């Protein structure tokens, strides 16, 4: 032990936040930026994780799990927001169901794929329009604390919330 604070990778920090928040049910649709995080949640004995085929399906599965008493999250790319808008509105927001969406936010600074840009730019605007609160990493703020704050907001407001984690966040790998 050196006595110095342990330095976590971005994925480890998000995973710590998931555990600190008490999330115990996760669905995922992959993104290259989630390739370290998804195996972590898959191997965590206290978390039931399942891959889903489409984010809209994930919203439905998480709603059912919430009705069964679970604390739910979805790991996804921001493109999946477009795939799930009707379910977020006419299921989660209609019935006051909380959900934590942890999004790899593509199509922003550092994006090499042009096709990611339209949804990347639209994502915060869509969330604003839907009145879905979202959180973004800030310097000096522990990403794990950000995740916990986001989940607590979802529970207090009884609605979906998003954490947007852009390309530069994931590049801070040790």
């Amino acid at each position, binding site marked *: 032990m050196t006595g110095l604070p342990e330095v976590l990778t971005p994925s480890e920090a998000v995973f710590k936040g998931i555990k600190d928040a008490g999330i115990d*049910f996760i669905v995922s649709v992959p993104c290259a930026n989630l390739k370290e995080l998804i195996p972590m949640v898959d191997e965590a004995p206290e978390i*039931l994780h*399942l*891959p*889903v*085929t*489409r984010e*809209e*399906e*994930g*919203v*439905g*599965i*998480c*709603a*059912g*799990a*919430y*009705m*069964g*008493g*679970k604390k739910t999250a979805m790991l996804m790319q921001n493109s999946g927001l477009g795939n799930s808008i*009707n*379910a977020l*509105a*006419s*299921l989660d927001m*209609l*019935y*006051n*169901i909380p959900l934590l969406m942890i999004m790899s936010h593509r199509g922003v600074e550092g994006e090499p794929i042009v096709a990611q840009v339209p949804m990347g730019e639209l994502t915060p605007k869509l969330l604003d329009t839907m009145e879905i609160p979202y959180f973004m990493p800030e310097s000096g703020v522990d990403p794990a604390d950000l995740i916990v704050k986001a989940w607590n907001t979802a529970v207090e407001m009884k609605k979906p919330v998003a954490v947007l984690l852009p390309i530069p966040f994931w590049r801070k790998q040790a």
Partner: protein
Amino acid sequence: MKRIDAINEIAAKVKESGALLIGNIGIPCKEIHHVCDIPTNFYMLGSMGLASSIGLGLALARPDKKVVAIDGDGSILMNMGTLATIATQSPENYLLVIVDNGAYGSTGNQPTATSVVTDLAAVARGAGNRDVLEVSTPEGLRDVLKKTEKGIIVVKAEPGNTDAPVIEMTPEGIIKRFMDISSQPSH
């Protein structure tokens, strides 16, 4: 047979077994509510396509409870990936009943692909589901409901709706009443 005949059989089954029931959007929910409104029913008023997904999530979250979802052919066609996810997870406590009447029954009976060429039982099997049964009579459905509490039943039916009234409960009221049971430990 029509959808209401399937709903009568399923309602009798869940009433007896105590299973949690997820009802599909539109007229199916109204018919369930009209035939048998009990606190173990969840009425999905929006989010077309997701009744089978809600049922799966609930069944995985609560292996101590039986879960039944009633879905339709139009809804399954809208969320076909659900059949792959259900097959992959295959929970012992989850039964999905697809009432396949070949039509979008709540919107004017426009035909779906199952009225032309698509075989949902074959799709379900192709997605990897092992327990897939097909029935086309109320007696046939009653018979398989006695024997099975997991897997998928495809009920071949004719299009047609009853005039079941609108559900007067609020969404808040529906989910609160349901979760008072679904989120609690089993006795």
